[in-house]
């Protein structure tokens, strides 16, 4: 066998190694750009693009310019655009496949910017089409402030009094027929006349035999009369009971129209109560949308806070993409996450100006790091905004008990042309005003608990009330245009999937007082009209029921007459 070592192979190996190093030197920036764009797009669900990536080896660091992250819900808008992003990397940790960024600086962060081209990814946009669109106006409607037309109300509402009268008539007629049949079977005038004739005959009989025979006959006739009288008395007793029941029902029937009027007045007339939740109607839908958006962004940020892991015999298994195997983590002497940004300094640019902040401990392995993500941003003296501060802690150190806390405080935000309601009955716009807003929100596991406190100062409301609008709408419009200051509070509780928003505002009381008299007059008029209408509708059936009862009561008179006639015979 020839010598086993091929010395010239060393040269070949060295050449190949040098080639690889050269390739890396020339193309590493393009490769990193591609990796960031590919991984970022997969994470966000929409295109992530950057103009340039520049990797430096000594010291280890990376600079990225013009990073654009598309909003997956609006492909022609970016969630955020960052002009420059510079970071220093821990080179030794990089060899351990850990991306530990000690310091990251983000300059020129501009949220919600326009894109020239759509940033939708084909597979994601196809999936999104299946989702139902969210209608921001869903459920938002000012209650009708028009006094309803009495004819319309009576046309569509069923009156209980009419139903009662109908039933009464049907039943009393049936009973009348039954009693008339019963009367026919009971001893009547002719039968009593027969008794009288037989008695007279006895009285006229003469002789001893006639007297003795007559006494026996008399006893027999009297017994027959008594039996018939007993039947008549029983019938009278039964009838008195039935008649008393019909009398009671007739009284109820006569009272029924008043009950109908009461019910319809309660249902259709306006009251201060209807306006007590106007703030819910004005702000509820918008608050709901904001909560939905906040929860949606929180869900999108989940990959930055946690990732899927499972434990097997004390070792932690992290599941990556399919077909790439699984990574098993073991205990480290100095535990560190696979990805960590210890400190980010960021400068955010919005239309009003810019504000600065820091974000600490960005990692999907907070349990490994043992510290939560925290952030704090603050800015003041901006255009149309006196001050803003925004801080929070997203604590997923214990993945089974995550707790995220966010606080936002805005002072002196200048509102302009803010549409509160585009309802045709009561369109409400805040032309101008200053808003102070404080929000404290906690999301513990899936439980939401948030308090929102808003103050509006120097407000100028526009309520373009249409000319045809009713007196109440006009009163509300006038009151709103006089309001300059108001406060509103919201409490959001429940779970992230099923939460409840409770809103309250002094707007409710102001409106309630302002329109109280107008409502009172309108309601009184409506009540009178309704009364007339109901009475007109029920007058006929009620009269018919009274007549039927009188007819029915005639049977009692007949029974009494027969009893009297029978009693006279004894």
């Amino acid at each position, binding site marked *: 066998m020839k*010598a086993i070592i*091929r010395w010239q192979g060393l040269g070949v190996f060295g050449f*190949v190694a040098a080639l690889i190093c050269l390739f890396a030197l020339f193309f590493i920036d393009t490769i990193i750009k591609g990796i960031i764009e590919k991984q970022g797009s997969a994470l966000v669900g929409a295109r992530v693009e950057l103009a340039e990536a520049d990797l430096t080896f000594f010291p280890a660091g990376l600079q990225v310019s013009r990073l654009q992250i598309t909003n997956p819900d609006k492909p022609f808008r970016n969630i955020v655009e960052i002009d420059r992003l510079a970071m220093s990397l821990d080179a030794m940790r990089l060899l351990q*496949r850990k991306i530990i960024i000690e310091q990251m600086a983000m300059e020129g962060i501009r949220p919600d910017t326009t894109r020239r081209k759509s940033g939708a990814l084909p597979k994601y946009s196809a999936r999104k089409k299946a989702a139902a669109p969210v209608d921001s106006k869903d459920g938002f409607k000012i209650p009708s402030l028009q006094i309803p037309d009495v004819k319309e109300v009576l046309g569509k509402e069923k009156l209980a009094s009419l139903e009662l009268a109908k039933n009464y008539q049907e039943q009393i007629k049936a009973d009348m027929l039954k009693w008339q049949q019963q009367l026919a079977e009971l001893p009547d005038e002719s039968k009593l006349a027969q008794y009288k004739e037989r008695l007279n005959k006895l009285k006229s009989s003469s002789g001893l035999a006639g007297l003795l025979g007559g006494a026996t006959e008399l006893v027999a006739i009297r017994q027959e009369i008594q039996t018939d009288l007993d039947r008549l008395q029983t019938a009278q007793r039964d009838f008195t009971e039935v008649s008393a029941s019909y009398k009671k029902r007739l009284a109820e029937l006569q009272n029924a129209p008043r009950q109908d009027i009461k019910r319809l007045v309660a249902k259709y007339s306006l009251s201060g109560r209807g306006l007590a939740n106007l703030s819910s109607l004005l702000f509820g839908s918008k608050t709901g949308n904001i909560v939905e958006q906040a929860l949606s962004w929180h869900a999108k940020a989940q990959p930055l806070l946690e990732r899927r892991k499972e434990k097997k015999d*004390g*070792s932690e298994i992290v599941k990556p993409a399919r077909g790439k*195997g*699984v990574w*098993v*983590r073991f205990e480290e002497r100095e535990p560190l996450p696979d990805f960590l940004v210890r400190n980010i300094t960021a400068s955010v640019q919005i239309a009003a100006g810019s504000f600065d902040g820091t974000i600490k401990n960005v990692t999907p392995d907070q349990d490994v790091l043992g510290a939560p993500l925290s952030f704090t941003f603050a800015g003041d003296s901006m255009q149309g905004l006196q001050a803003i501060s925004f801080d929070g802690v997203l604590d997923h150190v214990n993945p089974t008990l995550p707790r995220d806390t966010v606080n936002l405080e805005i002072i002196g935000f200048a509102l302009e042309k803010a549409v509160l309601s585009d309802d045709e009955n009561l369109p409400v716009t805040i032309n101008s005003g200053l808003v102070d807003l404080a929000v404290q929100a906690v999301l513990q596991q899936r439980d939401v608990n948030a308090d929102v406190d808003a103050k509006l100062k120097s407000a100028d409301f526009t309520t373009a009330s249409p000319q045809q609008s009713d007196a109440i709408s006009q009163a509300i419009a006038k009151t709103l245009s006089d309001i300059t200051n108001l406060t509103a509070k919201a409490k959001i509780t429940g779970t992230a999937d099923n939460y409840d928003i409770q809103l309250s505002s002094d707007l409710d009381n102001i409106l309630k007082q302002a329109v109280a008299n107008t409502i009172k007059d309108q309601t009184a008029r409506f009540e009178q009209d309704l009364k007339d209408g109901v009475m007109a509708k029920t007058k006929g059936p009620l009269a018919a029921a009274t007549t039927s009862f009188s007819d029915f009561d005639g049977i009692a008179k007949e029974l009494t007459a027969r009893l009297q006639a029978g009693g006279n015979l004894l």
Partner: protein
Amino acid sequence: MLKLIAKFLKVLNSEAEPGQISLAFCLAMVVGLTPLMSLHNILVLFLVCVLRANLSAFLLGVFAFTGVAYLLDPLFSQLGIVLLTAGTLKSLWSSLYNITLFRLENFNNSIVMGSLVFALIVFVPMYFLFNLLITKYRDHLLRWVEKSRLMKFFLASKLYRVYKTVTGLGGAV
């Protein structure tokens, strides 16, 4: 590719040491079965360059074993998980996990671990098996193959023309 196959056939049918071809195949098996971008493959490349392993056989082997790896990856992953989560080996893995070189090796990935362990276990038996097969081929099959219809077809093919160019013989196989 045709050139590569022709070169391999030339070596296979020459008087070259069977051990050189077998070693090339076994090293190719390690590279082919395990994920390409693994640290140990640099060592394998170094060995291929320095040891007298046949380069044509190595390259052909890498292609062949990479194809096999696609089919066996799920099994390698299972094997890797079993090994990486075995209680008795936990302290060993934990020690290696804290060494930068081994972290670069990605040993804690189930496919890397499963395929590498499999390749190393079968390395020596496969070396001797390939040796035996090459010897048997040269002793018994070569003459038969030369006379077979397949070979006649091959002699008329483009591959053969490449083979002739490679060997520079222009003569018979």
